[in-house]
């Protein structure tokens, strides 16, 4: 028996590098100029999975829910040593908030059937909510360990981790199955393997309804997969009412583009005199001592 590890990965717009033209003149977001990237902390989660596989053995399945072009990050997973990948994609998932997202992902994980560890990134940079991980854990009815900055010890029945908290850290231990959310303190993710990148270069998706039977779970880890599994609402047995917009209790009432009103900023000349005057003014007003 070896560990079954599931890693949840998400493709996100690169919100950390938003440039001026991200907003269209009409105030809407110009998604086209934002490149889609692998959510950074999901790479940290993936790295921990690969490290566990390398030390005690295991099989890693990466799952993403997203549009068809999210296969891009699944290929990235394969290039780094993941054994199997699943794209959960369906128009009915559109407009999902974190609750509807975690419901769909829970259904996908249950289709994989057997799992010991579920690894997520701490948060996705598109919204920084950090909600989906704990919500998946609740829906699977398993324990959760969040903000994991180090996996201290892992064996086939339990895991000990270091968790970062505001004023220090704590060491926690849990039996499996358990869900972890991993932070960027945990590791420096590896780069893709050239050999695997060549092997999986042309792999593409295929809608499949097959479930993970015992045969799959026992199959050799070194057998390369030949296609990316694609699942939809029906194939994960999800209730469409609980997916997408209809399954989302939160609604966006309005979005406003940020308009800064010109303030009464006092221009200080960048000269010795200009700056000396500012410092004297602030001193007189007891702003600086």
């Amino acid at each position, binding site marked *: 028996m070896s560990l079954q590890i599931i890693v949840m990965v998400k493709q996100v717009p690169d919100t950390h590098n938003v440039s001026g033209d991200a907003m269209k003149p009409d105030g809407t977001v110009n998604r086209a100029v934002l490149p889609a990237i692998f959510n950074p902390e999901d790479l940290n989660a993936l790295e921990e999975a690969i490290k566990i596989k390398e030390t005690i053995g295991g099989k890693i399945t990466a799952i993403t829910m997203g549009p068809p072009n999210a296969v891009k990050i699944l290929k990235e997973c394969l290039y780094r040593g993941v054994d199997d990948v699943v794209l959960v994609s369906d128009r009915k998932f559109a407009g999902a908030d974190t609750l509807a997202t975690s419901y769909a992902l829970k259904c996908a994980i249950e289709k994989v059937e057997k799992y010991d560890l579920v690894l997520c990134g701490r948060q996705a940079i598109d919204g920084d909510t950090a909600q989906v991980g704990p919500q998946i854990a609740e829906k699977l009815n398993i324990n959760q360990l969040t903000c994991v900055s180090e996996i201290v010890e892992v064996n086939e029945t339990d895991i000990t981790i270091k968790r970062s908290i505001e*004023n220090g850290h704590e060491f926690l231990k849990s039996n499996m199955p358990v869900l972890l959310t991993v932070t960027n303190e945990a590791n420096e993710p590896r780069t893709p393997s050239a050999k695997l990148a060549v092997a999986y270069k042309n792999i593409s998706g295929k809608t499949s309804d097959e479930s993970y039977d015992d045969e799959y779970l026992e199959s050799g880890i070194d057998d390369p997969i030949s296609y990316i599994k694609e699942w939809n609402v029906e194939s994960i047995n999800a209730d469409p009412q609980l997916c997408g917009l209809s399954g989302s209790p939160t609604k966006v009432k309005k979005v406003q583009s940020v308009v800064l009103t010109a303030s009464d900023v006092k221009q200080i000349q960048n000269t010795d005199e200009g700056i000396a005057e500012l410092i004297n003014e602030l001193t007189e007003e007891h702003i600086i001592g």
Partner: protein
Amino acid sequence: MSAKNSVMVFIEQNNSKVADVSLELVSEGKKLADKLGVALDAVAIGYNLEKEVEVLGHYGCNTVFYINDERLSHFTSVPYAKTIVEIIKKHEPQIVLFGATTTGRDVAPRVASELKCGLTADCTELQIGEYKLKSKVYKNTLLQIRPAFGGNIVATIVSPESMPSMATVREGVMKMAEPDTSKEVELVSEKCGLDDSDFMTEVIEVMIEEKNVDLKSANIIVSAGMGAATPEGLELVKKLANTLGGEVGASRPVVDSGIIDRDHQVGQTGLTVRPNLYIACGISGQIQHRAGMAEAKRIIAINNDPDAPIFNIAHYGIVGDVNDIINRMIKAYKARA
């Protein structure tokens, strides 16, 4: 005795002391409760906290539901989540607020998932207002306001049909009210309905580390952005902070690049600060950064781009190279009349 439909705050404690963020949320929750004409309640979980929770009354809390159990003395996810869910089901608040701390962000989503209710993370503002969806009008619903999408937009999120609506808010975002020590809170003990099997996490050790910087109480903060993220720039920022007797802050990309510790991050996902003086060195002024410092009494912006958004909220703007300007400031301070 409290009634249904209250506003409720989850009380966080560190070593049995009520966390600042919880007092801030009680202060804010009180305003929302007054607007709605309902009670402001709290839920406190832990061991031997009777004395500590008395302070909640000073900030306007009416009733605290208190679960006392030795097994709950330290936070772990499943027992806390289950306990909060039980309290919410029993008392049916319409709004529940959590600190956006490692504890709050761990437990709130788990509670929201179990109750199938809406949860909005990292709100920077909370209001009570109206929401119209087709022909339906929801009056007095919680408007949860937060920046989104790289800070180019501010979104107002509602969960009008969700009972309750839940939100997390970072420490420092809401102002703590002036305590009124004559006001008392009613303490209502609640049974702990947990089984030993709910305690799925074993706490092996907790290590408390002293913070190496206390931005929240600093009077002067000199902050480095990407425009000051060179070795020389960062040295000068530190030197200026030292000279003025202030602390060093930073924007998120500077923290992410690893050259300065996370304790220094100012902004939506860092700290919210209100110093007397905030000097933004090479910071563009994206909304997530502004969310953490816009309420400083005086803001000096230093940037070589005259169109940088930071100038729109600054009181003093200096256009030019950050190294140049900091050197001039240090010189002027030392030579001041």
